[in-house]
């Protein structure tokens, strides 16, 4: 069975929330600040089993030393959060393939 972020966040406590109930732009800035490596994806691209919601270009960050990914997570009533959770190399490579290269 493939990984699903929604299920993971409900059933695991091995993740960290760096911002919650925030605006998308603030969350994008936090990801750019915290990550040591970034890729930029389009809204609707699938990462860890969910379509990522946001304003392009959407930053997805990595901390390679910790083996974690930072991504924006948006809910209609709760705004956008920045979630950091463990990720394996296979998923990192899948995300790299989505990189638009567009940072503006």
């Amino acid at each position, binding site marked *: 069975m493939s990984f699903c972020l929604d299920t993971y966040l409900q059933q695991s406590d091995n993740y960290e929330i760096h911002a919650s109930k925030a605006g998308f732009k603030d969350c994008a800035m936090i990801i750019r600040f915290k990550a040591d490596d970034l890729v930029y994806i389009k809204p*609707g691209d699938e990462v860890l089993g969910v*379509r990522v919601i946001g304003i392009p270009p959407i930053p997805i960050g990595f901390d390679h030393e910790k083996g974690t990914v930072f991504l924006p997570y948006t809910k*209609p009533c709760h705004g956008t959060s920045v979630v950091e959770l463990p990720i394996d190399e296979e998923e990192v490579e899948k995300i790299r393939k989505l990189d638009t290269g567009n940072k503006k």
Partner: protein
Amino acid sequence: MKALVLLGCPETPSQTPMAVYVSSKLTKMGYDTTIAANPAAKKLVKVSDPEDFYHLNLVDLERLLGEINPGDFDLLVGFVHKDAAASFFVTFDQILQTKSLALVFSRDADEVAEFVSMIEESGSEAKIAAVRAFHNPSPIKVKFDKAIKEFE
């Protein structure tokens, strides 16, 4: 022809009557109309039409997001009154790659301007109807009626 009406967080009083109004108008224009919303916003709309007079087709927003593909709808109309709603609208707009109309409103004029710029900065070609409104749906209705004429 199929139209998708995207609702945001149900905290804004004018969203529910406008959802019924927009759905009814689009249906009269010949669209097979679907309203996508989170569970609370869906319930507010559903309870507003107890006799199913308007035949409102309500679906779960996040489930639909996981399923839609480019071209599934011919028109997207989105209610944008929160930062998250702007993000959802832009995301559906980019996936569907179809004609779209954003109804941007807030009680705060600065927020209206901010949400408009979020949509514009995304590169979206959506028509944007923006107005300061919160409790009273009339300003949104007036803007919608004017904007939707471009899609007739």
